[in-house]
């Protein structure tokens, strides 16, 4: 039996679409990433699966319980944990009191153990907590009854990087114990660390369902390189590079960032090139080393870029749109210009992915 199974699950708020026609299933023992930009319908889906709201059409089963059957779902929730993106906690009491209360409601078999990893100041009132401490308290409450299935809605939000890593490690350890996770996020890097499969949701629709590996293979990396001298887009046209954008950025020795505009006495011209790259690191680095590298960064592509690549939106159209709004500053990204001589003004390429 799948841990979660949805059939044409739709939720509208009046005329506003939350999610539409979601059909997928999450296997037991799997970490299922539910990936999408903000406002895509991730939270709506989770709230409907938790039974906070009823579906407009279609249905879903959570641990075998139909979400439209309040009593069955209530019983199933004894084995379900829920970690919201914004922890909703009673702030007028201490963390310890809140843990006792929620322990009485859902059972408490492991809060002591959890508190060794996630350690909010229990004797202080929740109102005095930082955002991260609230999130840690919410984590303890979500896991204290040792649930078999946990819904997590942007669970790392508010946590410092160390605690984020601890949470992801905790999720991996729980998965080894056979637990199932429904992990909603808009951050690809954390999804790739823990998820087995991902469903990608956009505008309320599930647009893709695949393994994390194939998603990463397709999504590519964002490469930004700053080199000395003039460079054309063609110089970097290696296999797997897309959307190459080139811009001169002023004199090398006057490495101004905010560009006051008249620092043109340098003796060298630097060029910044950015592009999306899919493929192995080695050929990329070999090519880059042919230039005088000033700076290099290779990052995971932002989710929006992945969507753009996946679903065929033409990047140049988007750039024109941005330019139209922004008084035509900068050149079209792919024109490979560098005709501005010795950079009187900082020339910035307007990027579309805002």
């Amino acid at each position, binding site marked *: 039996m799948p841990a979660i199974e949805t059939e044409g699950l739709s939720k509208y708020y009046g005329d506003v679409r939350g999610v539409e026609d979601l059909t997928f299933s999450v296997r037991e023992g799997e970490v299922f990433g539910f990936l999408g930009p903000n406002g895509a319908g991730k939270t709506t889906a989770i709230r409907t699966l938790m039974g906070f709201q009823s579906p407009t059409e279609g249905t879903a089963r959570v641990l075998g319980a139909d979400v439209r059957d309040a009593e069955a779902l*209530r019983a199933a929730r004894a084995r379900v944990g829920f970690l919201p993106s914004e922890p909703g906690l*009673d702030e007028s009491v201490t963390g310890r009191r809140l843990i006792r209360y929620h322990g009485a409601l859902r059972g408490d078999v492991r809060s002591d153990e959890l508190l060794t990893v996630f350690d909010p100041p229990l004797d202080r009132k929740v109102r005095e907590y930082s955002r991260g401490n609230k999130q840690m308290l919410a984590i303890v409450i979500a896991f204290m009854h040792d649930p078999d299935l946990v819904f997590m809605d942007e669970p790392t939000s508010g946590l410092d990087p160390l605690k984020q890593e601890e949470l992801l490690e905790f999720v991996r350890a729980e998965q080894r114990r056979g637990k199932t996770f429904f992990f909603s996020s808009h951050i690809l890097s954390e999804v790739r660390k823990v998820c087995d499969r991902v469903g990608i949701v956009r505008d309320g629709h599930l647009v893709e369902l695949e393994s994390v590996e194939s998603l990463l293979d397709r999504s590519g990396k964002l490469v930004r390189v700053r080199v000395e001298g003039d460079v054309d887009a063609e110089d970097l046209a290696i296999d797997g590079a897309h959307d190459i954008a080139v811009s001169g950025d002023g004199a090398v020795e006057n490495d101004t960032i905010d560009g006051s505009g008249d620092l043109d006495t340098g003796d060298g011209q630097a060029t910044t090139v950015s592009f999306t790259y899919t493929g192995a690191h080695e050929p990329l680095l070999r090519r880059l080393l042919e230039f005088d590298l000033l700076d290099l960064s290779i990052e995971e592509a932002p989710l929006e870029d992945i969507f753009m690549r996946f679903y065929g939106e033409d990047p140049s159209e988007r750039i024109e749109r941005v330019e139209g709004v922004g008084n035509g500053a900068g050149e079209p990204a792919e024109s490979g210009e560098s005709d501005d001589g010795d950079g009187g003004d900082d020339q910035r390429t307007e990027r579309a992915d805002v």
Partner: protein
Amino acid sequence: MFETVRYEAKRRLPAATVISLALSAFAAMVLLIAPGIIGEVDVDALLENVPPALVESMGLEHMGTIEGFLALELYQFVWVLGLGAYVAYSTAGTIAGDVEDGRMDTLLAAPVSRRRLLLETYLALLTPAVVVNVVVFTVVAAGTAVIGESVALADLAAVHALSLPYFMLCGAAGMLASVAAPRRLIAEGVAAGAVVGTFLLQSLTTGTSAEWVGSVAPMRYYDPLTVLTASEYDLTGAGLLLAVTAALLLVAVRVFEERDVQ
């Protein structure tokens, strides 16, 4: 069992304590000025200048006795209107407030039914009602003895005991507002407004041909003045209040079960 009752009741104890103290202080003040007014002011002469309809509708002719004075100064107004509106207001803030602040999500994630959550929250609100009743009863009973007056203790106890069904109804109305209103502020406003509105309605229609309109007012079924001055206990009225309370709670549970929590 009853974790929510325990938890919510405890959270409300500070407010209950403050209200008890405030009302006790007010009761003490009323008792302190009572002997002066009852003994030295010619109430009958004073009332000659007041329209007879007003005297009758507000029971002002009882002003000259300690029972009447207490009923008019403390119970008819501060107790029935003030405390009634407060109970409705604070109940209305419970579920609506929890939903608005996202706390309801954390609660509903637990294997508890909405019915249970609502009823336990409601029961928890009776704590302040009971605490305030016990404290103020004690203060008034002791206070009358201190100023050398005497009020039948049975009547005084009845005034407090019979106020409980009345407050329970106010709370149930607040609970219905809490689950039905889209936001906390609206729920609170509607609930408190309903208590004040029906109070005005009943005051304005008493003694007129439209007196039947006032029968929707819960205050019609709980009259401290009659209890204290005539020792008449309206048990039918109390029963009616309890029946309506149960009905309102049933509707509230139903509404809460059906609605989306957003």
